[in-house]
């Protein structure tokens, strides 16, 4: 009878031929987390809708062919031809919602991506060089942080003009100092650790020290923040669009814009405001849940 030790049994749980890097283990934890499953499903659902929008949408979202059916006090609700009814401009609501997914996701992901990558770059430079470079970058981020983000958004829109690009910039820029500080402070913490000292004592060059040792271990808080910030970015983008900073054309299918167009119709056709609102909510929730799962997987205190 072969009796295994506790350690042998633990080793057998994982394939002995496949080494378990921290990334692989974190991914496994995420996969098994119900939050990730729910959040991930929501995200995948909306991504698929966004990607296949032209195929899925029954009509052209900008076509106002049914404008003749619109009356000041009544707007056709869901029917057999238009599953979600018509919007205030006589356009098919379902098609607009579907194409809205595309706009919202793209703006949200793009703006956060730009903000995070730019922020990471500055944080990396600050954390790697220290000294006056670090101080300079930190003072710049201080300035950026001091500007109220709404004011910043308005200024950007004033300079670039109302457009979706303005929204992307306006959401991306406030994220830059956040990610910069986060990466820099992680790096400062990791630099003190023994394994960095030991790599120094081995004689590893400064550049390898930073890129191979410090940075990979400093990314975890940023990853968590990025996944959680995605949901905020989507909401912020929708909010800015609602406020009118996005494209001036009211026909653009974008959830925030759709909300802006229909809040005055809450007495007449509340569903027109509710649909895009709920869509924003669920999308943001999906990213939030997934982000929570990422945080739990990467949080060292929760390990084992």
């Amino acid at each position, binding site marked *: 009878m072969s*009796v*295994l*030790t*506790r350690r042998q049994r633990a080793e057998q749980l994982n394939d002995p031929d496949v080494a378990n890097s921290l990334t692989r283990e974190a991914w496994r934890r995420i996969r098994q987390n119900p939050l990730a499953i729910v959040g991930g499903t929501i995200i995948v659902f909306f991504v698929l809708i966004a990607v296949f929008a032209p195929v899925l949408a029954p009509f052209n979202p900008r076509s106002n062919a049914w404008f003749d059916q619109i009356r000041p006090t009544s707007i056709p609700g869901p029917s057999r031809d238009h599953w979600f009814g018509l919007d205030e401009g006589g356009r098919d609501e379902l098609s607009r919602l579907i194409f809205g997914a595309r706009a919202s996701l793209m703006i949200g992901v793009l703006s956060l991506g730009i903000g995070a990558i730019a922020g990471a770059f500055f944080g990396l430079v600050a954390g790697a060089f220290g000294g006056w470079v670090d101080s300079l970058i930190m003072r710049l981020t201080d300035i950026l942080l001091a500007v109220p983000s709404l004011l910043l958004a308005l200024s950007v829109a004033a300079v670039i003009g109302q457009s979706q690009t303005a929204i992307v910039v306006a959401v991306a820029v406030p994220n830059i100092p956040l990610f910069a500080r986060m990466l820099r402070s992680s790096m400062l913490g990791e630099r003190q650790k023994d394994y960095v000292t030991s790599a120094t004592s081995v004689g590893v060059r400064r550049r390898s020290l930073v890129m191979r040792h410090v940075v990979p271990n400093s990314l975890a808080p940023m990853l968590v923040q990025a996944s959680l910030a995605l949901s905020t970015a989507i909401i912020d983008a929708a909010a800015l669009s609602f406020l009118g900073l996005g494209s001036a054309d009211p026909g653009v299918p974008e959830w925030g814009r759709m909300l802006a167009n229909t809040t005055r119709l809450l007495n007449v056709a509340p569903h027109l405001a509710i649909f895009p609102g709920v869509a924003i909510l669920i999308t943001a929730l999906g990213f939030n849940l997934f982000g929570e799962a990422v945080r739990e997987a990467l949080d060292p205190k929760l390990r084992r």
Partner: protein
Amino acid sequence: MSEPLLVVDDLHVTFQIHGGRAVRAVDGVSFAVRAGETVGIVGESGSGKSVTALAILGLLPSRGVTTSGSILLNGQQLLGASEHDMQDVRGRRAAMVFQDPMTSLNPVLTVGRQLTETITRHLGVKRDAARDRAAELLDRVGIPEPRQRLKNYPHQLSGGMRQRVMIAIALASDPALIIADEPTTALDVTIQAQVLELLREVVRESNTALVMITHDLGVIAGICESVNVMYSGRIVESNERHHLFASPRHHYTRGLLASVPRLDGAQGRLVPIPGSPSDVIAWSEGCAFAPRCPAVSDACRGQAPELTISPDDDNNGTLRCVQPAPVGMPVWSGR
């Protein structure tokens, strides 16, 4: 022989960990402590010694932990007692001294405040009287200028002083039982000597029962009267200290003694125990130490060895081994 103050009988503590697995941290532990006696529990990581201590004082987490067995303090059942009852016991009749005084003392409260908190809770005295008593306690544990120290925060004191403060807090209401979990491991060796000396004094003066939990065999040899050796959740050998050290019978005990470097250099080459503490099999499948034991045989696998009273000595020593070393075989051949 007086009645034992603390009787732990067949204690089991099982943790449910992530993934549905159950870990038996303490797997059937029994021992007793009389008033004024110092009992040692020695073991390495994974032995379950700290969990035993936490179980006695009801400090285990409430979720994900199952316990069974009995812990009697002066006849009162502690295991499974309500939090309300345990709060009366903790600090009043039984107190604990932890390993790391930096994290076991609240960094945002002054030393005086932490002391008076315990004193007013358990002795019901007013603030000023409590402060007096606190200063007395600090003096008793050998802290110079006790009145000034009351106003200090933990980070302003050295490690040794902080540990003395911990002991003072433990002594605040004159408990009958003190459990010390690795109280000197984090301290420098000369400070350790001071703190151990203090504990000896306290035990002598107040006839307090002391349970000393440590991995350091030297500390055990110097302060404990009887010793329990724990491995993987069970006691594998227990005996009066002279007998244990002079003639250890369980191969784990022997292995420990052979692998620990001694100050008087009496060993020659160190003989390590092969493998590591995680190389264990479950007790239900045989002796947990079998994978690392030099004297393992077929009889060691299949079922757990029973705890037997050693027949060859008149000392109530117990042993959990089917192939023990014979009596009278010391680990070192002499100085």
